[in-house]
């Protein structure tokens, strides 16, 4: 009975992760189309959601593996998977609040590695695998993407020089939407399968499906649905950072960036050198700024992203480990419920924090002010903006009459 309840909990949490995955990664495909107004914001997220959904159904060669080659497959239990999922979700939500794109799959890997460490210690983790498959690709992905997108943008800028601008931007709008759609489709095929794989693994581990089972239809449908829902609701904060924060982008850069993303993502999986969609997409957008004569890249924003990527694994890992200890310490299904309750509470807190400075389809394209947007925490920025409103008027109310009086007296004295 307890086992069944835990299984249900794991499935629900996996779908929640799937949701944050879609939510977090809308910007990878659609940020540039929204920023250049090639598509209206809501049209863009709807298109991306539909393509994610279609993508999830496209290819169903799902393997029931999680963090393959990164952790010892024998130590994966439902508790470990559950704690790992919670770590991934929390990191996805925190980076969303900060408006930083970061890889959802790295967050999941980090969470699982953390909970494995807590469960069996360092022997459960295959460190060379973690370095070779997670850390090194995270450094290489943006470099490759910047090179490809910068080259593409440079060629495009050369070839379109002297052409009437209205026609060029109309033409490239089509190219941009087409290539962005391909990125969305690829994301749906890749990332929805990860959640399907987790749920299938949980079903097998919980004895609800035979070991050689293929993915049940309800799992495919629900994974596709929740990822599409997340995509449609749109991580507007991240879309804004990608579309407006990194570089000011036009449709030519948009098409170059998205084509570069689509090509690098698919070629890397073809050559067996998997790179994170998020890292590639972000690198491509930076590259479109590097390659466009006269454009500037805000390297400060890029630096914050890189810092977040470096933190992804340890941060999600710490949350995963804490969750495992808590759940194991309390023990049984009660422990898992406690962790689940904490996850709900944390999510609610993050949601309320986001409402203090909401970003949605109405203000996603507002001009980027690096001075105001700077600082890793919009929460802090909000507090900073709120504080003077309370403090400053009180001070000036006291100060100004006095100083006025002094000024008046002095002037009357000096000029009788």
């Amino acid at each position, binding site marked *: 009975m307890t086992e069944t309840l835990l299984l249900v909990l794991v499935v629900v949490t996996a779908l929640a992760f799937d949701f944050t995955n879609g939510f977090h990664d809308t910007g990878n495909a659609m940020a540039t189309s929204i920023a250049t107004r090639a598509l209206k914001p809501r049209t863009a997220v709807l298109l991306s959601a539909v393509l994610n959904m279609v993508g999830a159904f496209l290819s169903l060669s799902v393997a029931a593996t999680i963090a393959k080659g990164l952790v010892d497959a024998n130590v994966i239990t439902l508790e470990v998977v559950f704690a790992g999922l919670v770590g991934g979700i929390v990191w996805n939500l925190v980076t969303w609040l900060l408006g930083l794109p970061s890889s959802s799959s790295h967050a999941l890997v980090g969470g699982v590695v953390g909970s494995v460490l807590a469960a069996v210690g360092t022997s459960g983790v295959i460190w060379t695998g973690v370095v070779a498959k997670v850390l090194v690709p995270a450094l*290489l992905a943006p470099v490759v993407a910047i090179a490809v997108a910068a080259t*593409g943008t440079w060629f495009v800028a050369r*070839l379109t020089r002297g052409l009437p601008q209205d026609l060029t931007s109309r*033409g490239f709008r089509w190219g941009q939407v087409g290539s962005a759609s391909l990125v969305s489709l690829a994301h749906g095929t890749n990332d929805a399968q990860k959640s399907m794989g987790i749920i299938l693994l949980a079903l097998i581990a919980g004895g609800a499906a035979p070991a050689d089972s293929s993915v049940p239809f309800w799992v495919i449908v629900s994974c596709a649905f929740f990822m599409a829902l997340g995509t449609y609701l749109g991580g507007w904060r991240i879309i804004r950072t990608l579309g407006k924060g990194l570089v000011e982008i036009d449709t030519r850069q948009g098409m170059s960036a998205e084509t570069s993303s689509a090509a690098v993502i698919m*070629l890397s999986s073809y050559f*067996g050198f*998997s790179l994170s969609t998020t890292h590639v997409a972000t690198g491509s957008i930076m590259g479109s700024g590097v390659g466009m004569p006269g454009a500037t890249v805000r390297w400060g924003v890029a630096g914050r992203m890189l810092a977040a990527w470096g933190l992804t694994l340890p941060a999600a890992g710490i949350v995963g480990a804490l969750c495992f200890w808590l759940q194991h310490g309390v023990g049984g299904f009660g422990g898992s419920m406690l962790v689940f309750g904490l996850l709900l509470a944390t999510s609610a807190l993050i949601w309320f924090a986001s409402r203090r400075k909401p970003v949605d389809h109405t203000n996603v394209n507002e001009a980027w002010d690096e001075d105001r947007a700077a600082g890793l925490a919009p929460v802090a920025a909000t507090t900073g903006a709120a504080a003077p409103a309370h403090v400053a008027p009180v001070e000036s109310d006291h100060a100004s009459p006095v100083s006025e009086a002094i000024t008046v007296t002095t002037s009357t004295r000096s000029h009788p």
Partner: protein
Amino acid sequence: MSEFIEWGALAHVVIAGIVVGAGIPALFALGLRLLVLPDGGTSAGADGAQGGGPVGARTRPGTARLVGAGLCFVVCVGAIATGIGFLISGGH
């Protein structure tokens, strides 16, 4: 380092990435350039053979330009179709 980086796979990704990822937008731009005649005069040498239309006016491009532009766009659409095919076929 070779323990951690598969240099061969990386080189493949970079080279193919540049060819496809940078080549397709460049072809698209080239197609657009062929389709939209540059304002007359400035680049008359380049397109003197076909439709060197009246100065300043956007005339219809000549057949050769149309065919060239069509080829560019067909390659772009073909690349997208190949991408979709790759995703359907399992992709990884």
